[in-house]
């Protein structure tokens, strides 16, 4: 069973339902509040039946005309009507439904005298099940017969879309078939031309392509099935008993999926994501813990989960969803992580409306809607605090407030499952709002197209940002020092106190290096600790690097930084050490490769190398070097 788990559990369900009929003018609002709860199929049907019995009508002030939805299907859909109407109610939309006589979708579309045409739908959903679509073929069919069947079936569907559009001039949605046929071969099912299972995959793929050209929205039940499992969507027993392609258990989610698309086609999807800060975008409370105390980014699973959620929000913004912040904080404190926490994925520039003060959140959400010039019913508000969520739901029932777990690892998926930002296409305007998304895939594509390594490296536009050790990066620094085993010259482990000691020692330096390229931020990828010893030797106590950035000229570039830092301390030469372990063989020749000469020892036990700084010439590289936080 698939739950509407992002909706709050309903309280006092039976009492509220029984009272609906007597609620008078308030009945519609109360019903909408119930519809915005985590209802199962029995509750969904009960709510729908109660409203119909009591003849509860929406208020005249409802912004949208009623949706008149025609369901044109090849199997039974009557059990899904209540869930579709309740999903409309959830969006404060009234929905009237027409369903064709069993199996008669084609006849009714073609016959202007049919009841369908008197219904005058303003949205049409065509739902053809897998058994219906694959009826003409079987394992004995030849490849040519299958091609003909594929072509004919798709053209028949295209004709349906065009008939519906010509007759009703309205939104047309096509429901892709659940893959119901058990395979005959298995993983290589596609090699059997007459496989019905493979045929349905092909039809779904072909219909997606055709739907783009015909401006038909698809309802991707096949993708939902891939996520939820076929058993969550289809019960063979109920198929044989009642020809229900979608099992009643899945009706609530099905209804919501349908109404997301209808709402999106009417421009009624949510437009803005409003985010709380403390324990929503990062772990901890910035006002108490300070920027340095926040859990965010690499260094802990929890910190990575928050960064992952920030990344999802940024991705949404790049496809046109507006981002806003509403936080109970001093504004100065709230802004500080955006300005100087190195692991923040979201930047101040990504946030269109930033409200941090001590007012209550409903008041601040009104302020956000006003500043953005959109309705409150276009806002989705994400807050880890159940108190704030319930307050907003009570004061502003038109704002969507998903239930989120206490674990940020699930935040992004919850937003996706809730489908608030459903869109049927991406406009140029959406794209203009979004920045250039940069991905590993692009990085790899560039690598493939580059004729040699140099041009690849040059094309990466790498920037190495260095900072001295600081408290903001402390956790990551200690973590890297203690977990890096391969590219680690000495494998010395340090505690936070040790690292703080380096920060306070004016005869030592600690460097943390961040690598950014045109495809994104790799995070802190290298650490170097140097200490001035006797005879003005700068001892490289620690040099370690993440293996993810091997082969990108980070090593010679880092040497340039180390040399500069050493010269600043008055050092005469650099002295490096290789202490072999079971796992750091890869850096055995690190110093010789960088031009250091051997002093003593040997790489089997411990070897020392030196590089004279007097005649030091900075090594060439394609990496641009800057101090992080310094002006560009």
């Amino acid at each position, binding site marked *: 069973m698939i739950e509407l788990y992002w909706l709050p559990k309903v309280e006092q369900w039976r009492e509220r339902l029984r009272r609906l009929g007597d609620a008078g003018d308030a009945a519609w609002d109360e019903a909408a509040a119930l519809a915005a709860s985590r209802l199962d*199929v029995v509750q969904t*049907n009960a709510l729908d039946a109660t409203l119909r019995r009591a003849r509860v009508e929406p208020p005249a002030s409802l912004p949208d005309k009623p949706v008149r939805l025609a369901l044109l299907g090849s199997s039974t859909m009557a059990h899904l009507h209540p869930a579709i109407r309740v999903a409309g109610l959830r969006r404060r939309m009234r929905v009237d439904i027409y369903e064709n006589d069993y199996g008669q979708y084609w006849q009714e579309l073609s016959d202007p005298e049919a009841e369908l045409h008197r219904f005058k739908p303003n949205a049409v959903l065509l739902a053809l099940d897998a058994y219906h679509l694959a009826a003409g073929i079987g394992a004995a069919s030849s490849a040519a017969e299958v091609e003909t069947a594929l072509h004919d079936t798709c053209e028949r569907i295209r004709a349906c879309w065009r008939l519906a559009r010509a007759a009703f001039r309205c939104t047309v949605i096509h429901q892709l078939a659940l893959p119901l046929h058990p395979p005959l071969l298995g993983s290589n099912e596609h090699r059997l031309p007459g496989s019905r299972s493979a045929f349905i995959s092909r039809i779904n793929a072909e219909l997606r392509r055709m739907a783009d050209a015909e401006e038909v929205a698809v309802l991707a039940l096949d993708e939902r099935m891939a996520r939820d499992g076929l058993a969550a969507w289809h019960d063979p027993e*109920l198929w044989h*008993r*009642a020809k229900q392609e979608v099992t009643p258990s899945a009706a609530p989610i099905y209804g919501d999926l349908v109404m997301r698309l209808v709402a999106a086609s009417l421009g009624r999807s949510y437009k803005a994501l409003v985010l709380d800060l403390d324990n929503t975008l990062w772990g901890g409370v910035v006002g108490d813990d300070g920027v340095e105390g926040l859990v965010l980014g690499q260094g802990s699973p929890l910190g990575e989960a928050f960064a992952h959620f920030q990344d999802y929000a940024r991705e949404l913004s790049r496809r046109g969803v507006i981002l806003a912040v509403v936080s109970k904080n001093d504004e100065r404190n709230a802004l500080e992580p955006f300005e100087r926490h190195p692991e923040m994925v979201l930047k101040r520039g990504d946030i269109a409306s930033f409200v941090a003060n001590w007012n209550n959140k409903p008041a601040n959400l009104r302020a956000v809607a006003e500043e953005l010039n959109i309705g409150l019913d276009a806002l989705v508000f994400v807050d880890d605090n159940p108190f704030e969520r319930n307050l907003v739901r009570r004061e502003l029932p038109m704002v969507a407030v998903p239930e989120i777990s206490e674990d940020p690892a699930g935040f992004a998926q919850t937003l996706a499952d809730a489908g608030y930002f459903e869109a049927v296409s991406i406009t140029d305007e959406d794209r203009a709002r979004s920045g250039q998304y940069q991905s590993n895939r692009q990085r790899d594509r560039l690598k493939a197209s580059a004729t040699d390594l140099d041009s690849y490296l040059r094309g990466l536009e790498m920037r190495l940002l260095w900072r001295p050790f600081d408290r903001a990066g402390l956790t990551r620094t200690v973590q890297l020092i203690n977990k890096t085993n391969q590219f680690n010259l000495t494998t010395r482990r340090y505690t936070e106190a040790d690292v703080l000691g380096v920060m306070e020692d004016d005869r030592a330096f600690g460097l943390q290096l961040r690598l950014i390229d045109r495809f994104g931020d790799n995070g802190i990828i290298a650490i170097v600790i140097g200490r001035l010893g006797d005879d003005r030797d700068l001892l490289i106590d620690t040099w370690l690097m993440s293996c993810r950035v091997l082969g990108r000229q980070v090593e010679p570039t880092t040497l340039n930084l180390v040399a500069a830092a050493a010269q600043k301390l008055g050092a005469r030469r650099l002295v490096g050490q290789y202490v072999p372990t079971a796992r750091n063989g890869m850096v055995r020749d690190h110093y010789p490769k960088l031009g250091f000469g051997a002093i003593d020892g040997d790489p089997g036990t411990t070897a020392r190398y030196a590089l004279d700084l007097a005649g030091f010439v900075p090594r060439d590289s394609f990496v641009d070097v800057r101090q992080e936080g310094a002006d560009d």
Partner: protein
Amino acid sequence: MTEPEIYDTLTAIFRDVFLRDDLVLTPQFSAKDVDDWDSFKQIEIIVAVQEHYRVKFRTQEMDRLTNVGDLVMLIASKS
């Protein structure tokens, strides 16, 4: 679970499905005792029961159900 517990659970489900708080289930209670107990309602009841008890009924088992008493026996046999 005991038979009375099953009757309590079924009563709550039936009251939600038929929106009638006065329904009292007996072993002989069947489709002829409620006006709108059609095949859809029958399936809704079965789905609700299966979800509540996290069980799955076989086609043959569903075919043999004639009244509430049969359903209670079936649930008891599954748990």
